[in-house]
């Protein structure tokens, strides 16, 4: 395993030059010994990232020259051995020790600063499929982008879990949201979700910490293919709402996969969007474990089975927004690449259930 550390540590604060090669070449400076990702984001840079704690791998960066110290053994990171051997590290865990040259694709969208705000549960509603629709009325307006997520915790509790926002933020970026929504699946034995499901939690105080992630970013006028597995529908709903409002021409195909008919949820929200934007949204629910002899007339199988030439989309021209469990997202990504999708247009949020 390649060791990115190459020179002895030297003391003293000084600034370091970071030269970036990639989609957008650029140069910026940070203080020596600062964490690369945090420093870049503090300067308003659109550095690819998601979790910021070394779990998701979205801030994967290739070190071309110079020295970066990883905070933890790279084998304990989501990077593959090949990536580590080729000089990749996680920017969220990498401390810059001098001038460096890196390879990463910086974007061009507004970075939303982190906030820690409180609120009270204004809606706690059971949906099919062991899903809760949770809405929180915030004490302080909160800014976020569609496709992002936040950590939720109950007031007074150490336990916190991350969930994607299920509705778009206010269209006017000068107005922050005063209420936010989430779709939360019960995970058997999960500390947070079991507590949430135990009884109606309306009125309880919650804390929100975020927003994180950069899933929903692409040209607003580009049509999209949205693929959601279970409560992966949450960010997809937010992205759909936002992009349908932002563009008059973009069209969307939504593949929504759950196990059985009885687990379909939030269809009313999708149908509301279809009604609001006629001719621009095609919904394709697909069930993976529906009984063979049931009355279900829709698609059966896994979401990847619908990603083919018959779907009626030009894979080379659209963007895709995928959210669901890790295996599902990876399978969809692989399928989309085979269908000729531009890898830079694949936006995915892979989650591992933590409950």
């Amino acid at each position, binding site marked *: 395993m390649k060791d990115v550390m190459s020179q002895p540590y030297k003391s003293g604060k000084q600034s370091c030059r970071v030269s970036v090669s990639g989609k957008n070449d650029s140069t910026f400076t940070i203080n020596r010994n600062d964490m690369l990702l945090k420093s870049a984001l503090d300067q308003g840079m659109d550095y690819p990232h998601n979790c910021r704690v070394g779990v998701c791998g979205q801030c994967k960066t290739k070190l071309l020259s110079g020295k970066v110290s990883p905070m933890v053994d790279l084998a304990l990171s989501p990077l593959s051995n090949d990536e580590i051997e080729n000089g990749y590290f996680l920017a969220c865990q990498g401390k810059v020790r001098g001038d460096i040259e890196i390879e990463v694709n910086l974007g061009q969208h507004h970075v939303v600063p982190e906030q820690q705000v409180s609120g009270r549960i204004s809606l706690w509603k059971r949906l099919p499929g062991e899903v809760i629709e949770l809405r929180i009325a915030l004490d302080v307006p909160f800014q976020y982008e569609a496709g992002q997520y936040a950590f939720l915790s109950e007031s007074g509790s150490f336990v916190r879990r991350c969930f994607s926002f299920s509705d778009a933020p206010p269209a006017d970026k000068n107005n922050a949201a005063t209420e936010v929504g989430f779709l939360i699946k019960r995970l058997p034995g999960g500390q947070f979700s079991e507590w949430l499901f135990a009884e109606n939690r309306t009125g309880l105080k919650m804390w929100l*910490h975020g927003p994180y992630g950069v899933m929903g970013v692409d040209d607003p006028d580009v049509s999209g293919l949205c693929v959601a597995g279970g409560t992966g529908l949450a960010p997809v709903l937010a992205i759909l709402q936002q992009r349908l409002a932002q563009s008059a021409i973009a069209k969307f195909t939504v593949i929504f996969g759950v196990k059985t008919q009885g687990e379909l949820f939030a269809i009313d929200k999708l149908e509301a969007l279809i009604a609001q934007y006629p001719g621009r949204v095609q919904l394709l629910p697909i069930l993976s474990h529906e009984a063979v002899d049931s009355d279900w007339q829709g698609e059966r199988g896994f979401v990847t089975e619908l990603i083919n030439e018959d779907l009626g989309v030009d894979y080379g021209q659209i963007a895709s927004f995928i959210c669901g469990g890790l295996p599902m997202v990876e399978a969809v990504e692989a399928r989309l690449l085979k269908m000729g999708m531009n890898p830079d247009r694949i936006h995915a949020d892979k989650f591992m259930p933590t409950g």
Partner: protein
Amino acid sequence: MTDYFKYLLSPFILSLHAWGMLEGGAFAWLGFGVIFWVLLFDAFLKPSHHRRDTRFPWVYDIIITCTVLACFANIFLYAHLAGGSHFGGVAPQLGAFLGSVMIGFVIGAPPVHELFHRENMALRTLGRIGQCLVFDPWREITHVVTHHMHTATPTDPDYARRGDTVYGHFTRTFPGQWKESYHLEKMMWTKRGRKWYDLRNAWVFKATYFAVFIGVLFALGGVKGGLLACGSLILGPRMMLEVFNYCNHYGLVSATPGRFKMHHTWNHLTPFTRILALEITNHAGHHDDSYKPFYELEPDETGPKQPPFILCVIAAFVPPLFMLMMKPLLKHWDEHYANDQEREIGARENARAGWHELNNDESPTTPSAGLAAA
């Protein structure tokens, strides 16, 4: 320039202990006595915020490297002497044993911890092998990955919640660390596509040098000397490090696991404690940047502080005394350091501990059923 000489205190005390053991008789108590009185004297001194001279860092590194090597020599010497009839009566044997316990904790553990946090591979390797001196070759991995990532939350096995006694902490922290060690080792061999028995796995190297170390102790001291030497390391650095952890984050709460803030740890900044512990009691600075060498750490002048270190350690073994000491400190922390969310967590922790007097009427103390603890 005097800063460099200060860190010769540890090897000096180590030399006194070794000499005392060789002399035998009452001199076997020398190491224990010197450390005890230095720390007691230190308890009456004011905190020091002095920043160290960093013009010649290699001097510091040479001193701590030699200290670690000397600690190995010391424990081997103890095993050899204890295995025979060198110490004679019970009193000298006890003195030598307690001296080794204290030496192991106060003199041996800090440089090992310092070195295994370093980036330089030679120093880090010495630190890793030096974990034999704290009788746990896996201490580094759980410390660096879990403790530093989950500071001041119950997910960290090194963390003690409000109301927890040190005895309860022992029963939780050791199994927690062993479980975490296994989990992390398994992650590494799985990630590298290896079987658990692959000789290239990190655990194999650790188990090997640990076995060699224990073998040398028994070879030098026989069964009696080997057992006494191992016992001094277990009761000394191994156990006392957990007392240190117990004290250093006791009752503090973090609402942002993975994002350390300077108020998530207690500090002890009296001068001799700083020197002997290699600034580890300047704990906020260490957590803020765990790669920073001890001589680079900036004492947190305004951060949360506990009473002098030796008092905390002694009080920890008398739970009512420890709680009496900690309650006003935690109340102050809640009021002056915690953010709003942490204050709420603190209030619930107070309720969990039965410390209702620390909560005011507005504190959210009633836990919703099922989500009281992580």
